[in-house]
């Protein structure tokens, strides 16, 4: 029956059920990703940010929160210019982190 309104999906992140396979694999390959402090330097300097809202900070966080679609959308404009790597105060190799992430499929497996 059409009531003219619908159940809206919850925007809450349920950490019990969130699919973190891609994140888990990423931190296995790039343990430095764990040390992100969410300062946002990477987002502030990002060349691609105007076109996709790219932010390495949000990418790392989004993966932990199971927001893979948002992550992929952000990654879709990354130009690998390396500015984020230069400004990261924790010395995270963000550029390689992005490359590594682009190689992982939804299940966190590297495509061959």
């Amino acid at each position, binding site marked *: 029956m059409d*009531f003219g*309104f619908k159940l809206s999906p919850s925007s809450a992140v349920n950490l019990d059920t969130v699919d973190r396979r891609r994140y888990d694999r990423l931190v296995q390959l790039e343990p430095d990703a764990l040390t992100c402090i969410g300062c946002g330097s990477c987002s502030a300097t990002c060349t691609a940010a105007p076109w996709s809202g790219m932010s390495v900070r949000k990418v790392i966080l989004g993966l932990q929160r199971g927001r893979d679609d948002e992550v992929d959308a952000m990654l879709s404009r990354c130009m690998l210019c390396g500015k984020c790597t230069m400004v990261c105060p924790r010395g995270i190799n963000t550029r390689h982190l992005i490359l590594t992430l682009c190689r992982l499929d939804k299940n966190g497996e590297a495509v061959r």
Partner: protein
Amino acid sequence: MIYQGKQKIWADYQKEIPDDHWFYVRSCIRQNFFPASEKYFLKICRDLLGRDIYESEHHTTCAGIAYHCDTIPQETAMTVVARQFALMTEAGYDNLVTSCITSFGNYTEILETWREFPELEEKIREHLWKACRREFNKPKYIAHASDLVYKLRGEIAERARYQLVSRATGEPLRIVEHIGCHYSKMFPHKGVGGAEYPCVLSGMAEAWGGQVIDYPERRHCCGFGFRQYFVKANRGYSLSNTHKKFESMEPYHPDMIITNCPGCPYFLDRWQYVIAEMEGKTYGQNGYGIPAFTYEELAGLVLGVDPWDLGLQVHQVAVEPLLDKIGIPYDPAKKYLGMDEKKIKTPGLPATLKCC
């Protein structure tokens, strides 16, 4: 769950509720949704327990709905409330008991505001005088009707004909208590048991033999939310909140829900039908829903009032399985008979949610 821990908190949040002599103000909407609730509250208090509760036909809305919908400013709401106080003062009462949770919250909020800003109170007095030449004393005590029933729960239990237990097994019924948001979330000390673990309804449930269940989304809003429900575009949001609560309470297999707010039982009752239509999901046993009651209906039930006199036939969710479980007799044939014993219309049965 450490029950003693809750008791400790309850001990900190006991409010003073005078035993007698109350000025009663009704809810705007309850008489439509749950027509017998207010009537039976008065009946039980006055006739059964012998309390003095006065009601004036001149009282109006407290303007809480309009205030919460941002359609009137607070000062207007305050003046409306001041008029109720004036009616109470004129009738010679000091204690105000409200039927509606939002009214309770509204009155409390206004009194607290006046306490902080006495100049505002003066201004409102002037407004009231200009508007209708009335003067008022502030009530000494404000209680919600559920506070009063909580206070009288022992006396009701003594006179109860039924216990909230399963007749077949003797097990206490599993009861979800849902407190209206405006009851104590704004002023925890104004609610019995505070805001986090209120005991106003759980106290009744336990006194009448039931067992309260503590599910994760216990504190969550029923989903009414004036602005969410009234605007159709936002109505899905309202529904989603209710859905969230049902999903959370589902594993506990509750037998019933009791509430102390006008909107909550309505939404917790009617949305079960909508969810069943949308999702094909029902939350009660055997395809039925979980019946949602007002505390007055519950008090009426345990005291042996005929379910149809309590207006349970206007509930969306069928109450019959629960009545059977407790062992309360009812006559199915009389379900849709009006006051004059003539048949009122029988509603059509929904497709998914099982009803009687």
